[in-house]
């Protein structure tokens, strides 16, 4: 049984200031099995991240269904109650972004341990796992207790990926997670994704250099300009 069944998913933004509605994608359908990796490809600004954000409900889908088979039962991510989405985010669905959102005076180690603590893991168990994650992504131990607000972009991204991947998830949404990583950190991330995939985690991802993960990919959603139905094709705008 698919973990996720997306049917006719559409996203339009209504921008009041412009008195206009902007369509990003329309009637998109696909299924995702446990352990499958779907690559989302297409030109910049075409709406790849928008799809991921709709599935995570950071954006509200405009129409369609996204039936997700959670451990607690089947649910439509498009219409699910906010508290149900919040629960899924704590327990089952993860999102890996391109950027860390560091908070002042919160150390790298604390940031990485946080998703475990939020899920109810005790501090004494969470801390060694957070250290192991930071180590596997190559952040120098001297920086573990330091505040990432002062880190370089590459160091911040190591913390970000460690934080995003530390808690067990069944569905991972990846939004260019390799963007600011150097080659060694990128290699450990890809190794980690391979492990997760073989453990049965389903992945949907946008990658700036798709070739580096091509060997993991089971399917591809390719966004093309002009792919929207003719009645929506009024005029193209830059994002």
């Amino acid at each position, binding site marked *: 049984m698919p973990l996720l069944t997306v049917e006719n998913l559409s996203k*339009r*933004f*209504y*921008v*009041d*200031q412009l*008195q*206009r*509605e*902007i*369509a*990003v994608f329309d009637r998109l359908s696909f299924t995702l099995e446990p352990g499958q990796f779907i690559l989302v490809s297409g030109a910049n*600004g*075409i*709406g790849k991240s928008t799809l991921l*954000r709709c599935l995570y*409900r*950071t*954006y*509200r*889908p*405009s*129409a369609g269904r996204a039936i997700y088979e*959670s451990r*607690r*039962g089947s*649910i*439509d991510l*498009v*219409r*699910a*109650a*906010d*508290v*149900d*989405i*919040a*629960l*899924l985010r704590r327990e089952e669905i993860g999102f890996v972004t391109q950027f860390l959102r560091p*908070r*002042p*005076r*919160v150390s790298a180690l604390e940031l990485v341990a946080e998703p475990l*603590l*939020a899920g109810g893991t005790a501090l004494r168990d969470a801390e060694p796992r957070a250290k192991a994650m930071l180590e596997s992504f190559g952040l120098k131990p001297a920086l573990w207790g330091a505040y990432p607000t002062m880190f370089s972009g590459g160091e911040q991204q190591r913390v970000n990926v460690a934080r995003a991947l530390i808690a067990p998830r069944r569905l991972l949404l990846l939004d260019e997670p390799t963007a600011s990583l150097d080659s060694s950190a990128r290699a450990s991330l890809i190794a980690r994704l391979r492990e997760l995939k073989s453990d049965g985690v389903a992945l949907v991802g946008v990658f700036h250099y798709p070739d580096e993960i091509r060997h993991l990919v089971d399917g591809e959603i390719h966004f093309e300009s002009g792919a*929207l139905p003719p*009645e*929506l*094709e*009024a*005029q*193209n*705008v*830059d*994002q």
Partner: protein
Amino acid sequence: MTVISSRPSSPNSNDAPRLITAPPLLRAKGLRKTYGRIVAVDEVSLEVYPGEVMGIVGESGSGKSTVLRLLNLEEPADVGAYTLDIPDYAGVNLFTLERFARRMVQIQHIGIVYQNPYLGLRMRYTSSGNVAERLLITGERRFSTLREAARSWLAASEFPLDRMDDPPRKLSGGMQQRVQLAKAIALKPRVLLLDEPTTGLDVSVQALVLDTLKRLQRELHLAMVLVSHDLGVIRTLADRVLVMRGGRVIESGLTDQVLEDPQDAYTQQLVHAKL
């Protein structure tokens, strides 16, 4: 990306919660409050689950502080029901309680931190005394127990214990907020109300207080309602958010969704007005 019609999408409505089976801890339905001819709050409903932080944003005069006063049982709503899932009072509209019972619910089950520490603290008592006073109200008289409780709740609020016998008026703004917080949680309430708790503090102090709040929320599994006009504070702490304007809730949703894909025209302006 393609621009189409000038007609907004039909508004989304959510299904009722299905995965979450426990009842909400706090439930307010159809609240209305008027002062003379002024309608301060109208048709406001919210549900907050244990361990959840509900943010309320809006400009001054939007009614957000009035909602907090109602939830703190400082005054009853003209219309509407307010229930907490607590022993002896489950299903009881707390606005209908007589004064003494209302006061007991307020003391034992609801904690509050005000923006202005003068509202929440006796500025000339010691800080430890401010916290211990909560236990005195419930009948605790043993000095050692009071002292120990004050010490441990101040420590939980990350207050520097070598200052615990200083009166709040001699403390910095950040420390005063920590005393308020220790006092608010000293009787292990189920609900913690926060009215602009970090407004007016230096940015670095604000970050530390927010972090303490985040840790306490996780450890005590409270239902928190946080009123703030600061979207950064809301983003850091709140799981969900209500946007208020003119006494009404005009939008609600997951915090990241309301901030990044606001549906209402006013919310779009509010979010983009942020520097």
